[in-house]
């Protein structure tokens, strides 16, 4: 399976979703699709750093929440347009990424230490957002309901879904660009062996800084879009560990360090959740049990993610050697 073929398949799948949405879907399915795209975008952000760079973050909530709070505060407190809020949210999210990256990479943190420091940053931000007045404290903040294109809210949510699809498509192209660029090659080199990469002349600090900034920008974009859909945010939603977990789960289950992995992961995880829920009858929580079992099976039998498993099957059919396991 070539990279371009993977990209085309992912694009075709998104086109199919878009057509389905345009033809007409029940509100609950559309809502699910919207949430899938938000998680896919978050996971695409995580994938840049964790998948290609091998720097697994447990604290992408720090970027998601910063994007979400920035656009909310700009809209509600300062009356600034939602689109400008979105751009500022992405910029500030990227800045927070750069700051966390600067502090961590300068200290040479990697592996579990990097994961823990990102988790700690997200927690610090959660506690701050929970106590500051300008973030609404524990009451959280609401974006007023104003259905118009300029407010990035739509009475017909199909349009919002299409905007999300466009962003996910851009994320796919960005990932493809990353794979083909020198920057991507350096990033993969430092994932495989950072000391060797450094010995070959790669400025690993600069590459890591660029990767975390890019990753944070994409994830904060997802945060901004989350607010525009749910119109409510509090510290636990914005900076809670749930979104960090969704981001890395989706990317890892789908296939970390691949173009379509985050999209596959988010569609599978959230879709699976809904499907098991509809078959679980009246017993609350049984869907979560089934979901957990499927997840364990998935991780046990497809350590390179679903994307890696499918690619290996394809290779085996074509009598080609299997891909080497990814280090995540």
């Amino acid at each position, binding site marked *: 399976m070539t990279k371009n073929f993977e990209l085309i398949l992912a694009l075709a799948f998104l086109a199919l979703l878009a057509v389905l949405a345009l033809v007409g879907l029940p*509100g*609950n399915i559309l*809502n699910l699709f919207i949430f899938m795209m938000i998680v896919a975008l978050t996971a695409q952000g995580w994938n840049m750093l964790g998948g290609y760079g091998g720097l697994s973050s447990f604290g992408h909530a720090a970027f998601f929440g910063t994007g979400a709070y920035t656009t909310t505060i700009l809209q509600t407190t300062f009356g600034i347009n939602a689109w400008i809020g979105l751009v500022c949210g992405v910029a500030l999210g990227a800045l927070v990424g750069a700051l966390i990256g600067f502090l961590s990479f300068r200290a040479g943190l990697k592996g579990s230490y990097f994961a823990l420091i990102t988790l700690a940053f997200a927690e610090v931000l959660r506690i701050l957002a929970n106590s500051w007045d300008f973030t609404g404290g*524990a*009451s959280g903040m609401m974006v007023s309901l104003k259905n118009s294109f300029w407010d990035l809210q739509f009475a017909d949510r199909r349009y919002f879904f299409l905007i999300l699809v466009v962003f996910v498509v851009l994320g796919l192209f960005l990932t493809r660009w990353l794979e083909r660029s020198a920057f991507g090659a350096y990033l993969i080199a430092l994932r495989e062996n950072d000391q060797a990469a450094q010995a070959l002349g790669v400025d690993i600090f600069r590459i890591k800084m660029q990767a975390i900034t890019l990753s944070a920008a994409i994830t904060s974009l997802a945060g901004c879009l989350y607010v525009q859909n749910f119109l409510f945010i509090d510290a636990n939603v914005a900076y809670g560990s749930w979104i960090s977990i969704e981001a890395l789960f989706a990317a890892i289950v789908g296939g970390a360090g691949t173009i379509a992995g985050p999209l596959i992961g988010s569609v599978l995880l959230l879709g699976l959740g809904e499907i098991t829920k509809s078959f679980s009858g009246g017993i609350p*929580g049984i869907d*979560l049990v089934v979901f957990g079992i499927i997840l364990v099976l998935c991780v046990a039998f497809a350590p390179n993610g679903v994307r890696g498993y499918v690619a290996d099957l394809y290779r085996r059919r074509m009598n080609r050697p299997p891909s080497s396991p990814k280090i995540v």
Partner: protein
Amino acid sequence: MKTLMNSVSRRTLLQTGGALAATLAAPGLVRAQAPTVKIGLLQPMTGAFANDGDLAKIGAEYAIKEINDAGGIKALGGAKLELLVGDSRSNAEAGAQATEQLQADGAAIVVGGFASGIAMTGTQAAARYELPFIIDCAVSDALMTRNLKNVFRFNPSFSMAADVALKNLVLINDASGKAAKTVAIVHEDGLLGSGLAKLMQARLPELGFEVVETISHPTPARDMNNVVLRLRSLQPDLIIPSHYFNEFVLFARTLQQQRVKPKGIYALFGGAASSYKFVSEFPEAAEGVMDVNHWGDPKNPTNDKLMAAVKDAGKFYAYNTPINYSVIQVAAQALEFAKSADRGAINEALSKNEFDSGIMPYGKSKFDATGQNVNALPLNTQVQGGQIKVIYPDQFAQAKPKFPANG
């Protein structure tokens, strides 16, 4: 030909014809039955608040059964009510998804929400479809400031409850000869606790109390020893706590272990102070604790039946059951007034009429322009002799307040 005639005997022909006639008549029979109206219940059935969801479901199911047994919705030809349960999974965005699901499954009206964050996104999702939504017990004032025409709140808001709590506190303290002069506030750092602390800090000095300390802690909290040691050195007359169930239990038990005995513990929406689980499991720690919370009218005989139903389900009684029983009763009355399951008609019926409040002590429920029930009222309770007794207001009181509790 003869073989064919033999094989299709007269009996077979009659049987087949009978079956065919029955099949053709079936739609008519179905039409003759009363239609059903679906009521959605948005509650956390899994996650951190799952116990609250279970208790709420018991109340809602009891009300639905009672209404159906009494002949259903009369204005709709005796239509039966059917309960659809939407699991909000104790988080805000799953609340929105569950509401979408209830809408897709054909709910005519949704009740519940439970926590403010979940009610916030759930009502927002319902607003897209003008789906009537009656909030059961989420208290955030911000919920009713959004001008959503489909959203109504049955329970008192946070500020309404705080007014009642402060008024009754002054009454209780005056009756004791002003036994409490100093107050310490202990709160969780979330929406509920922080809001309460801010309000109490502003209002208590005006009422003649001195706030000696305000201590916040995160949720979940694993250890309350430091908080209690601080209180031990401050020796406040009164402690005003505000946290969820687990933290309240931990706090009360630590007070007991450290032998800190203030003259009273006075909670507003105390997570455990109005729960029989706490009272049954830690009777000594619970004794004397006062609370201002959602609570059913103890003199209403249905209250005892609900308590029995909760006990039969192997659970401990708390306010979720009576309030959800009552909110379903309000929804049923709205259907009677609307004379249709049409959403616009139900929303209009809810905004224009007065409703019996089930077993909640609200008298006639009336929703104002923002959708808030203006007659909603929390009750003051106190744990006395292992029972949760209502102590204020007088018309619902089962016992006199015991204050100072440790005096």
